């Protein structure tokens, strides 16, 4: 295990994982991407992740169940919920159940990076935002 922030990203939209994995890697996260909540839960049963990012609405198991599972299994982990527009009540419910924060679709990669940086800070490790910023400047 490296010092890098361990992130699990769960969203049933494949493109979300494909784009966010490199985006988060740039700020020094080690990202594991899942589309199937069952597989994600199985993986989390084995290993603790620093940050869990999960979509709130999925077909078989929804983000709430994932949140409940993580809160119970790994109380230290920070859970960030991805919600949709018009689901503010669900987001509030998630916060009450102990989610660290939520982010509403559609969002920019930087929006998530900022929330993850906040989570890292709360966990006691600073994130070097510079890498991404430099890249952006170059781009």
């Amino acid at each position: 295990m490296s010092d890098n922030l361990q992130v699990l990203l769960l969203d049933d939209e494949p493109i979300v994982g494909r784009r966010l994995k490199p985006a988060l890697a740039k700020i020094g996260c080690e990202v594991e991407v899942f589309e199937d909540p069952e597989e994600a839960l199985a993986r989390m049963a084995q290993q603790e992740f620093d940050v869990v990012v999960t979509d709130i609405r999925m077909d078989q198991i929804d983000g709430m169940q994932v949140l409940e599972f993580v809160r119970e299994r790994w109380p230290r982990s920070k859970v960030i919920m991805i919600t949709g527009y018009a689901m503010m009540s669900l987001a509030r419910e998630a916060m009450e159940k102990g989610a660290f924060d939520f982010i509403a679709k559609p969002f920019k990669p930087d929006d998530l990076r900022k929330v993850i940086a906040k989570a890292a800070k709360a966990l006691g490790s600073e994130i070097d935002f510079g890498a991404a910023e430099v890249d952006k400047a170059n781009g």
Partner: protein
Amino acid sequence: MAEGPARPGGAPPPPGDELSEEAAAIEGRLGLARDAEQARRALLARPRFSLRLQIFLGNAIAFLVAVAVAVALIASSHRMESKTRFLEIVNDYVMQVEQARRFEKNFFLYGTNLSDAQDNVFQAEAILNRNAEELAAIMGADWRRQVLPNLHSYARLLEKLGQGAHRDQPVGKAERLKLQSQVRAQGQQMVSAALAVLSKEKAALSEVIARSRQLLFYSMGLLLVFMVFNAYWLGSRMLSSIGRFGQYAGRIASGDFTPVTPTRRYRDEFTELALAINSMIEELEKREAVLVQSHKMRAVGTLTAGVAHELNNPMNNITLTAHMLQEDYADLDDPERREMIDDVVAEASRAKKIISNLLDFARESGSQLEPLDLPHLLQETIALAGNQIKLSGIKIDFQSSGNLPRVHGDSQQLQQVFLNLILNAIDASHKRGSIHVLVLPADEPNYLAVKVMDEGTGIPAHILGSIFDPFFTTKEKGKGTGLGLSVSQGIVAKHGGRIMVSSQEDKGTTFTVVLPVTTIPAQLGSEKA
């Protein structure tokens, strides 16, 4: 009143041809107006026989009968009067003659009173002369030819007798006897002739009296029969019309807006009522169309929440991809850039697809009737409600019997009905519940049934009867208008179908829509499908 919907369907336009769709919509609207106009013309084309005219004619006929009876009675009383008068005259005459004969007898017995007898004969003649006109009127020329000459010859015989007596000449006994018997015979004949006339005229008088009594009885009886018949006819005309209009009201209340068409051979005041009802139907139909449209827009509003949510996914994918492309452009190789651009394109078309169903449904169009493939229509409807279904986490299951005939209908309006039932089922369902949608032949032949079943809370029996009433809702204030099922019922009724509900509390509710199968060949529809 089993007039079917007389609305002409018009040929459905070829797919994708917006102009002809528009034309068909206008055609549909014109069709309604044309129906109303046709009904109006048919109603007015019949000869007019108003209730007012019947009442007037009935009274006029009764009055004329009464006048005729009165005239007849006056005439017959006139006749009675003249007959009575005649009888009096004849009676006076007979009295004079009989008196003359009594004196004649005295003369024969005692040789006295001959001049008295002559006096009586003279008076009898005076009576006849005084009443010559009346006698002529009743006896015609007879009295001149018989009565008067008889009287004259009697008078002459009396005179002959008198001459014999005055001269005091002993007339031969045989001659005197002969004269006597001549006088007697003449007197006898006169009296019996007068009595015959008297009894004949008495009989005639009593016949006139009897006849006028009969006339009175029969004409009163006839008048009674006529008045009873006229009252019955008038009453049944009014009552049957009132009954028919009661039926129209029920039919209109259940959403059948077919114009009232003629059922009788003539027109009257109820025709004006029918015209008024037809124009009310037209107005109601317009309002119903507005109501249906506004309810549709409400459904669109409900669906919009789901669409907005579902749109977040492609929007998010596009946002993330575009930002990463911007950020990492220089570091990416060509296939990677290509992949990202392809993702953007694919997600954009996914977004378009999400809203296009809703846009199709929301687009306002006139009533268009065409043969419809119900299972296909239901699949489209389920797709339309798809986002809502996904959002609520409810499973929907669709089944259809194979090879079903088509139904004749307006696809948008029927879709609105099914969408309403499905959205209601979603609202009623528990989280993670499921909804079953079935299309199958109905129990009655030539009908198809669409069943929308949920496993939700069910509807309490005491409100089950009112759920189709306008403005009845069990939803919270501001959540439901209470018009959905009422509008749906109206649409289904217009298609000649029925909508039914059965529910068990805590087990679920089943709505069944029964629609008649089209009798029009399906090739028009298959072109479209």
